[in-house]
């Protein structure tokens, strides 16, 4: 980089990224610096509002899973599982251990799918200095082939386990409508064993990438439990402490509507907090399996991690963890077989449907989806119809934290980086959170409001 006098960098900076790319959904980043003073720093979610929480009112509790999986195409399985857990809590249904095991397997494979999409397709182009994954097909062909193979494995997992990954079919209240075929499971198991090598290759790729240096300690919230690296179940923990039952989430954090965004913003004790891989790692890192801990070593990571850019590297650690956990479950399934008792119909049988006596009740379901803790909260009336619904989405919970990161980062960059560089830094920061904006409305454009006349490209 050519040496330039700091004076070249204006004290007025306006970032205005309209429609941030390589994220799921639509968002803007708007930053305004006047005379070196940050006057505006916003992450605006501009996706059209979806109104799921209103759409659910009046619908039968038995169709909540089908409906809410449509909140998001990437974490459709996560939404399904949070919804099923909430519905089961409201109805008083206990799933069998086997059903829970199959749910964990689906959740792990979805984590793998989403993390690979994020690492290779959304983040890697920035770190390799290109605009999308497409030029990498020419320049980094073996890497892209690895990525596609890893993606195919987790897609196939969705297909075998749930009929498809986008809007899963067979996972319903109480169990599965159909057991995965043995043939499919055998093939999937083989693909998982082969994926270990791709994981190692990916580790080498990530190790070589240079993540920006930036730190801001914050509150890290995730599920936590005593037995495992919590994904499917647990209590809510903040920085390893303050455990509270997931169903009491409203006592822990508050959601507020802000004017610049369609997504609600959440705070704990009036301060922003982070969810997602970085929070799970900071709270539960000690419970990662052996291979995942080796990946932690290899990548030089340490919990607690305060650099949000490293969320992407931690996602790879989680990928390794989820693969090994999945392999253990697959070996159990292939060894013991699955029980027909896990098979249920998607709704109660027609002849029973009108006889069921419903007690008005509420239920909360929380699972860790790729981007963080996801909550579905339903109240049902005496007809089994939903009278109240609330869905709390990881991206919304992260938005306040992302803005706080931006407020710390921008002044650190002023005088050192050009407007174009600051814009990219902010885009990369937002992307590192892996925002899912369809979910959040339940995104990203960077807007620097004052043009920088001497910006170097």
């Amino acid at each position, binding site marked *: 980089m050519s040496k330039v006098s700091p004076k070249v960098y204006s004290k007025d900076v306006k970032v205005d990224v309209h429609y941030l790319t390589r994220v799921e959904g639509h968002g803007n980043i708007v930053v305004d610096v006047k005379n070196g003073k940050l006057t505006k720093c916003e992450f605006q979610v501009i996706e059209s509002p979806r109104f799921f929480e209103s759409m659910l009112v009046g619908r*039968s509790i038995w169709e909540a899973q089908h409906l809410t999986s449509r909140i998001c195409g990437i974490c459709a399985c996560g939404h399904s599982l949070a919804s099923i857990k909430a519905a089961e809590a409201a109805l008083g249904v206990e799933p069998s251990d086997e059903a829970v095991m199959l749910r964990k397997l689906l959740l792990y494979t979805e984590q793998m799918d989403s993390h690979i999409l994020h690492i290779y397709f959304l983040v890697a182009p920035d770190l390799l200095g290109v605009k999308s994954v497409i030029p990498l097909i020419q320049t980094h062909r073996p890497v892209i082939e690895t990525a596609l193979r890893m993606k195919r494995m987790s897609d196939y997992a969705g297909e075998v386990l749930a009929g498809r990954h986008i809007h899963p079919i067979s996972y319903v209240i109480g169990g599965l409508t159909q057991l995965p075929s043995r043939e499919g499971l055998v093939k999937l198991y083989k693909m998982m064993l082969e994926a270990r090598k791709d994981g190692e290759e990916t580790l080498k790729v990530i190790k070589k990438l240079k993540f920006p240096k930036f730190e801001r300690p914050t509150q890290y919230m995730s599920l936590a439990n005593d037995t495992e690296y919590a994904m499917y179940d647990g209590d809510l923990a903040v920085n390893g402490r303050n455990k509270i039952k997931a169903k009491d989430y409203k006592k822990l954090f508050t959601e507020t509507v802000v004017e610049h965004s369609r997504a609600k913003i959440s705070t704990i004790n009036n301060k922003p907090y982070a969810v997602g891989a970085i929070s799970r790692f900071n709270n539960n890192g000690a419970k990662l399996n052996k291979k995942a801990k080796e990946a932690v070593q290899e990548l030089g990571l340490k919990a607690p991690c305060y650099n949000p850019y490293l969320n992407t590297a931690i996602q790879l650690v989680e990928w390794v963890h989820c693969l090994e956990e999945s392999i253990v479950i697959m070996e159990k399934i292939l060894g013991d077989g699955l029980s027909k008792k896990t098979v249920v119909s998607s709704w109660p049988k027609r002849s029973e449907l009108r006889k069921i006596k419903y007690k008005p009740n509420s239920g909360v379901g929380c699972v860790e989806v790729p981007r963080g803790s996801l909550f579905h909260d339903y109240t049902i009336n005496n007809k089994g119809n939903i009278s109240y619904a609330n869905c709390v989405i990881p991206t919304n919970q992260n938005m306040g934290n992302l803005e706080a990161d931006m407020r710390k980062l921008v002044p650190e960059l002023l005088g050192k980086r050009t407007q174009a560089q600051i814009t990219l830094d902010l885009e990369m920061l937002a992307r590192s959170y892996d925002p899912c904006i369809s979910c959040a409305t339940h995104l990203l454009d960077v807007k620097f409001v004052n043009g920088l006349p001497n910006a170097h490209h």
Partner: protein
Amino acid sequence: MKKQAKPKLAFFDFTDCEGCQLQIVNMGNSLLELVKLVDIVNFREAMSEASDDYDIAFVEGSISTDNDVKRIKKIREKAKVVVAFGACASIGGVNGIKNLHSLELAKKRVYGEKSDKVNTIKVMPIQEVVKVDYVINGCPPYIPEIVSVIKCLLLGKAYTVPNYAVCVECKMNENVCRYEKDEECMGPVTRAGCNSWCVNNGNRCYGCRGLVDNPASDGQKDILLKYGLKLEDVLKHFTLYNASSGDKYEQSFA
């Protein structure tokens, strides 16, 4: 004649979950074949570059704000071919449920006292606003059908969406009828083309592909009566995906 350049393909999303675009990413080898035949110039979910120069627009999602209306009209002006991609774009999909409640109530429920800041209008499939050349139904779209439609599109042929019920495919797949299993199903009135995907996996049909042109309403009513169902029970299922084409099911069950 000049050597033909590859047609430029752009993806656009409106109110939806972006699962349809992800189905494209999940096409695997078919996707590698596709990029040989077309130039993908706009795919915000995967690319930072964006182009305003395109021939074919794949549009997913429903229209639900004033800005959406303006945007889809602009896309229609620029594109030679517009494809309604997925249930939200083609029939309104689950977004249509919003139309069953008043907009004011929906806004209040989700955004509370700040609800007046939210811009939203009645949910519409895109062909309620602009002319559409091809339709790919389904939530999510069925990959073999995506491939069929793209083939027709590139050859300049029409694609005919099946106009028979999911039951036809379901029988070919030798599934036991859900009604025989003491369950309910939208298969008898729903447009085929998905190879009875959900029933094959032990679930029922939810009607995500929309209704056939002439749903056999009398036949469906006979089935409902035979199995002791009340019309109101089944009407509820019609609103899961087909609420924004409300007049159609009202007609069928008048």
